[in-house]
């Protein structure tokens, strides 16, 4: 029987070296490109990937693309700029607000939100959607609640129905998909690769946007759980203000954390549970080792399995009737 891990600690210097060699090998020998472009969000994942790209390729071969939009946190852009300055890389800034406006992303979302909360004013109010909190403490099905916060601090909350949720998601995902367009535009112009920033916790649970932040050339940290990302980020010198930030998708003006928006479990517990689940450890065994009740671990495992099932298509090439070609034809040597 597999044993659950009580710690996901990594040997940071070794891991930094391993990943930087991977990046250099992929960029130079496999893709045969000159460098890498990273979408710098002001969060820890992209800061870490940028730092590892610098270690692999040198600062002159890394471009940080900063892509705020009007619902981004005001703190994100200055942090991204500060991190880029520490790394000594060039940056470019693209405000996505005009293109998202032209695509109707804000207008579509506003229409749905006003249907749920007629008093909602997009010019003054802050909004977010959240799942029921504390999955380990309470057995609730996943449903999103919209919170509208007025300038006077008053809050209105309402449950989001399935059609509204799909329309909100479709509008919101335009953000990540337009970031992908911008990243590939720079990458092709410079003969660079697009370096992805999805970590293992996000990857296995499908917490990324198909053809959005999931559309990249290489995924340097897809094997690291979020807690390991924090550890490695400290080792490679990611600025402390970024390491200390609450992880967030940064797509809602009300500021929502990854835990509130998607996982429902704090990252330290989430990663240990995900690791045990991924390694086939029985829920009862994981519960014993992690100091949880069997019911709590079983609930977490059920959630992981449901998300795995719902998001399988994010992790594979599009299904087709194309017969498998020899590897020598499909891949570079």
């Amino acid at each position, binding site marked *: 029987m597999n044993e659950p891990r009580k710690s996901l600690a990594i040997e940071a210097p070794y891991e930094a070296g391993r990943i930087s060699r991977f990046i250099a090998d992929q960029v130079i020998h496999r893709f045969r490109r000159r460098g890498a472009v990273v979408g710098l969000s002001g969060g820890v994942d992209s800061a870490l990937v940028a730092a590892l790209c610098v270690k692999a390729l040198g600062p002159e071969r890394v471009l940080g693309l900063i892509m705020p939009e009007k619902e981004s946190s005001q703190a994100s852009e200055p942090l991204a700029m500060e991190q880029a300055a520490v790394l000594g890389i060039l940056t470019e800034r693209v405000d996505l607000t005009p293109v998202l406006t032209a695509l109707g992303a804000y207008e579509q979302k506003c229409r749905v939100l006003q249907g749920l909360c007629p008093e909602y004013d997009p010019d003054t109010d802050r909004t977010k959607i959240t799942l*029921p909190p504390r999955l380990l403490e309470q057995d*609730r099905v996943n449903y999103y609640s919209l919170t509208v916060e007025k300038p006077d601090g008053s809050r209105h909350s309402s449950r989001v129905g399935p059609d509204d949720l799909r329309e909100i998601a479709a509008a919101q995902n335009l953000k990540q998909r337009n970031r992908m367009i911008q990243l590939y535009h720079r990458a092709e112009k410079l003969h660079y690769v697009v370096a992805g920033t999805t970590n293992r916790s996000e990857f296995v649970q499908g917490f990324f946007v198909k053809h959005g932040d999931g559309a990249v050339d290489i995924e340097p940290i897809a094997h690291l759980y979020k807690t390991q990302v924090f550890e490695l980020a400290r080792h490679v010198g990611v600025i402390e203000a970024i390491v200390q930030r609450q992880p967030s998708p940064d797509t809602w003006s009300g500021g929502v954390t990854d835990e509130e928006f998607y996982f429902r479990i704090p990252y330290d517990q989430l990663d240990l549970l995900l690791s045990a689940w991924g390694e086939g450890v029985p829920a009862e065994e994981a519960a014993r080792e992690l100091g949880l009740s069997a019911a709590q671990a079983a609930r977490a495992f059920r959630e992981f399995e449901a998300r795995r*099932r719902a998001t399988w298509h994010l992790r594979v090439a599009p299904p087709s009737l194309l017969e498998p070609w020899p590897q020598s034809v499909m891949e570079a040597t």
Partner: protein
Amino acid sequence: MRDIVTQFICEAFPAGAQGRRIEGDTSLLESGLIDSTGVLELVEFLESRFGISVDDADLVPENLDSIDRICRFLARKGAGAAPADGPARASGRLSG
């Protein structure tokens, strides 16, 4: 009531139900018959079809994760008998 719920699940989530017998105690979520968005669709259906109001506090697997549980939940909510013009079907199996 049971037949109406079963028919809705079979028709609204055909990929999950196809070729399977949905027993009264089959877990709708764990079996993959419905996903989390599907639960919201189920809730909307229960509200509109049976004229009940499902509160946030009601959104627990205990109330919604099997046909037996849904029927008990509807009974507790006072949903009573289905309207006379409602659809009804005896079997929970979809033929294909």
